[in-house]
Structure formats: C-alpha cells, structure tokens
C-alpha cells in the first residue's frame, strides 16, 4: 500500500523567457484527492503537471509534497519519503516517455531497474498482462499503434506504484477497450488512496472518479470546486469524448 502524499503549490510562477506559463498558482491538493484539471490549450496545465513531477522548478514560489495525517504514526518514514519524492511520482505526459527501439518488456524492465523494484520479471509480466499487451511483450514499441503505446505509457508510469499520479490528457489515443481498462485502473488507484492530478479536455468514464475540479486559464486558477466541493458542475461543461 503506497503512502498517502499530497501536493501543494505555493504561489507558483513559471516563465519561459517572455512567455508566462503560470502566473501565481496556489493550490493545495490533499492526499487521496482525485483532481480533474481543466482549461483550454495554453492555460498552463502541462506546465503545472511537469512542475509537480519535479521536471522543472518554478521561477517563483514552491512545490511541496506533504504526507497525510494517517502516516503520522510513522513520522520518520513519512518524512523520509517526502525528502525523496521521485520514488512516489508517476507521470503520463504528452509524449509516451518510451524508447521506440526497445520492446515493451525491455522498456518496462529498464524502468523497473531504475526504480529498484523487487522481482522485476514478475512485476513487468503482471503489468503487461494488466494492460493487455502481454502478447506483444517482445515487439518493438515502434511497431505499436497509438492506443497500444498510450497503454504502455500508462503502465510504465504506474509500474513503481506511485502515490502521486500525474496525467496529462491520458485518454488521448486510447480506444474504447483501452479507456475501459484505464478507468478501471484509475478506480483501483483511487481506492488505494493515491493522489491523482489529471488534465483532460473531453469527458470520459474516468471523470466520474474525480473528487475535485480545478479550471486554469491564462496560467491562473480560475475556478476550483475545492476539496470538499462538488466537481460535477465544472465537469458538466466538458463535451463528451468520441
């Protein structure tokens, strides 16, 4: 069972030269929340996710990881976890983060090794089985369809059982079967107490799992249904995924 970790953004600003991606975003995401991140292109969703993934540091402000109150009994471990957060973050990005010239199994094995997982062969086999790519384990990712690559990308992100899962339009390219698998997977993660931050631009089944909706525009938080609020109002405006 992964530890419960929350993410806080304290007045985060991010600039790329004269382009402002984020202008003062403050957001506290509690452990176990399932946040749907909405907004038009260029609103800053990808930048926010990449910042949470520790791929870039803010121009101003800070991103912090907080352990949940449930872990207070094991404060030392909780603190240690927060100090080395990479082990606990999984990102499904715009790109697949996969090596095209390696097989599906090789890709997963590589990351299993880098994350120092136990029983690597079993973990990889289970992951491939779970996302329905077991029969294509030995094929190069280059030969995969878009949907298959996306499924593998998601499997890769979840391989090390992260506590904080960041998803940048993860449903893109998934077919109906893939979407069904993906929603079921997310439901399991939510049940396990993982914190999920997912950016989306169209409705799909996984949105039913959302406990909160945050809308970004122009690099700022425009609407936030809040930790205790109801996200469905904000989500209702999204059009349906075909």
């Amino acid at each position, binding site marked *: 069972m992964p530890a419960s970790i929350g993410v806080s953004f304290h007045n985060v600003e991010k600039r790329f030269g004269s382009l402002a991606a984020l202008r003062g975003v403050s957001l506290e995401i509690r452990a176990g929340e399932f946040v749907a991140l909405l907004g038009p292109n260029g609103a800053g969703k990808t930048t926010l996710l*990449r910042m949470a993934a520790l*791929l870039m540091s803010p121009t101003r402000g800070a991103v912090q990881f907080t352990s949940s109150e449930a872990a207070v009994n094991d404060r030392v471990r909780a603190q240690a976890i927060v100090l080395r957060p990479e082990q606990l973050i999984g990102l499904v990005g715009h790109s697949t983060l996969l090596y095209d010239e390696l097989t599906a199994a090789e890709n997963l094995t590589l990351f299993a090794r880098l994350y*120092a997982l136990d029983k690597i062969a079993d973990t990889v086999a289970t992951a491939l089985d779970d996302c329905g790519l077991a029969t294509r384990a030995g094929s190069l990712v280059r030969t995969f369809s878009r949907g298959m690559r996306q499924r593998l990308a998601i499997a890769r992100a979840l391989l090390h059982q992260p506590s904080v899962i960041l998803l940048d339009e993860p449903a893109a390219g998934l077919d109906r079967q893939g979407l069904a698998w993906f929603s079921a997977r997310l439901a399991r993660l939510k049940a396990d107490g993982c914190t999920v931050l997912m950016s989306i631009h169209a409705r799909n089944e996984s949105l039913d799992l959302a406990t909160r909706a945050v809308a970004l525009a122009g690099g700022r938080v425009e609407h936030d249904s809040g930790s205790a609020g109801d996200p469905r109002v904000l989500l209702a405006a999204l059009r349906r995924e075909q």
Partner: protein
Amino acid sequence: MTTAKAASIILAKELRLEFRTRELLTATVIFALVVVVLFSFAFDPTAAESRRYGPGLLWIAFLFAGSLMLNPSFAREQNNETLDALRMAPISSFAILLGKILANFIFMSLAELALVPVFAVLYNLSLAGIVWRLILVLVLGTLGLTVTGTVFSAVSAHARMRELLLPLLLLPLLTPLLIAAVESTASLFAEQPALDRTWLAFLAGFDIVFLTASWLLCDHLLAE
C-alpha cells in the same frame, strides 16, 4: 541506488539500443575511413611521411568521426521525451551522464579497434610490439573525447543546428588532447618505439579535469 549501479543500467540500455541496429557504429567507422582515404590524396605516403603524418591523421579522423557520433547521445532522448523519464527516476544526474559517457566510450573504442588495423595496412605502418601501449594511448585519448563530447551533446541538444554546433564546441576544446594523443602515438610509431610519459600524464590530467568538471556541473546540464 548508487551512481555506479544506475550508470550501469543506463549503459546497458544504451548498448542494447545501439547493438540492435548498429547504424551509428557502422556510420562512424565508414566516416573515419573516408577521412583516412581523403587524406591519402593530400600527400603521397612514403614510409617516412607515414610515420610523421600518420598519427595526426589517425587522430583527426577519430575526432571528426567522434564529433558526429556523439551528437545523437542526447539528441535521441528528445524522441518521446525519454530524458524526462530518466530524470524522474530516483537516480542522480551524474548516473545518466556517466552511463552515456561509458556507452560512447565503448562505441568509439570499437570503431577505433576496427579502424587502426586498416589504417596500419593503408599506410604501411607496423603494429608489431606496440599493440598494448597503443591501446593505452587510445584509451586515454578516447576517454577525454567521450567525456567532453557527451557533455557537449547534452549542451547542444537544446540548441538549433546541433549537428554543426557540437563539432564547433568540441574540436577547439580538444586541441590539447589532439596534440598529446598524436605525440604519444607518434613516439610509438617511431623507429625506436617508446611510451612518452609526459604526454600520457597530460592525457590523464586532461581526462581527470574534465571528468571532475562534468561531475560538478551535471545537474545544470540535464536540468529543464
């Protein structure tokens, strides 16, 4: 995870990727061969001239081939943004850099191993009795080349015109290495082959300086 272990995982990945297609390795060897042949049109290699100009020619071929071969090291990671995946893993930046340096070192060494005998044949130079000492010189020289080349691959991956930029950054920097390597090699091909301690020490010093600098600056190299 220790840096060494992480670097070896990265190294294994790089080797697996390259040996699947072997495109880069083949292209590097052929290119170096082309340089060697082109040079033969510039001067008519009599025995004395071969001994005199041969080492220089050999190392220039290695530097040119190397500066082309080292480019994809980090440029390839931009496909599918795989460098981000590596950076997100709980491993140090130096592990990523070191893994790639070692991989490039192996590739370059393989290319050199293929090329040196061919070169010896084309220019009628004997390798008898100097093989191990020559390997020592090649190792020290190639180490300097791959350390600086891999670092500059990371630098130029963020720039436009990176195929042209990498040699521009790398070759002036490597002139001391070129001098040292050529002199060491030349003294081995001389009438009385001898290992030039001064130049070897210089090569080792060069390698240590830039390996240390890479270690100190690697976080800035790989940052977004």
